[in-house]
């Protein structure tokens, strides 16, 4: 579910529309921390897409946790 990008960052392989995948990854993550309300985009509260430590990229996000 993760790839190392050219910058050596951990990039989510599911892109920015893999809602079930992002929720599954967040369920397994001990570092998950919800972002502020206005930056949350997933309906599942616990999702990498809602995490403070995700950094959006054009195609997906990288995990900074």
């Amino acid at each position, binding site marked *: 579910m993760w790839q190392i990008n050219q910058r050596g960052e951990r990039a989510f392989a599911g892109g920015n529309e893999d*809602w079930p995948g992002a929720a599954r990854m967040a369920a397994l993550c001990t570092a998950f921390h919800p*972002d502020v*309300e*206005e930056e949350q985009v997933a*309906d599942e509260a616990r999702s990498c897409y809602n995490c*403070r430590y995700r*950094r*959006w*990229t*054009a195609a997906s996000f990288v995990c900074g946790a």
Partner: protein
Amino acid sequence: MRILISIDDTDNLESRGTGDLASEIAREVNDKGWGESSYVTRHQLLVHPDIPYTSHNSAMCFAAEIDESCLESLIDHASAYLARESAAGSDPGLCVTVVDRLATPEALVAFGRKAKQSVVAMTEASALAAQLGIHLSAHGGSGQGIIGALAGAGLRLSGNDGRLKGHLSIATTDDTATVRDIRAHADVDDVRTLEGSPLAGDELVRLRGDKVKTVLIDGKSVLLVVPVAGTADGIAWQNCTKQQLRSY
């Protein structure tokens, strides 16, 4: 007079969000008797490797109707507030636009749209602000946040970009309200389908959970709804989910 106050790049991974700072400034505009602030909107800007954003690259903006004599006090206060409250390592920018003084408002809107599509330089933002007579100031770090602050003002001015910060609390019966009752909320101007059609006042909308959020369309705060499939209780619509609102 009507002004737009927009801020960007005030946070880091551990701090309060930029939206909270915008809400706080908006509250203080009211509390100090300078005028009346409206809701805060969030505007997505370009995510690109050459742009140093924290995690999402969005700007926050609100409109206010103020007395002209309060403008300088407001700018001074917001400037000091950002310098004091912005997070370590951030690059905060402040934009205060007097809407009626804009000779070419379309230039500001175009700048906002450009910042969603391409990398923009600080010099370009500063030059446009000077040309249009807009207050644009940096309050720490590299000052890179002036780009997003100016873009946020342009996108808010466009009337067709962004989501409102926060969730609305609307009284319901069995999680349902009429369009008329929803429109009675101070922060809702209209209820429309995703395709843009307005709903009649007596239509019923199921409001799911406590996540009722509106978006900015045609200069209005609009609750977007989608059809409810297969109900026999007369409820034809429900509010969009976060995922459905993501592109706004």
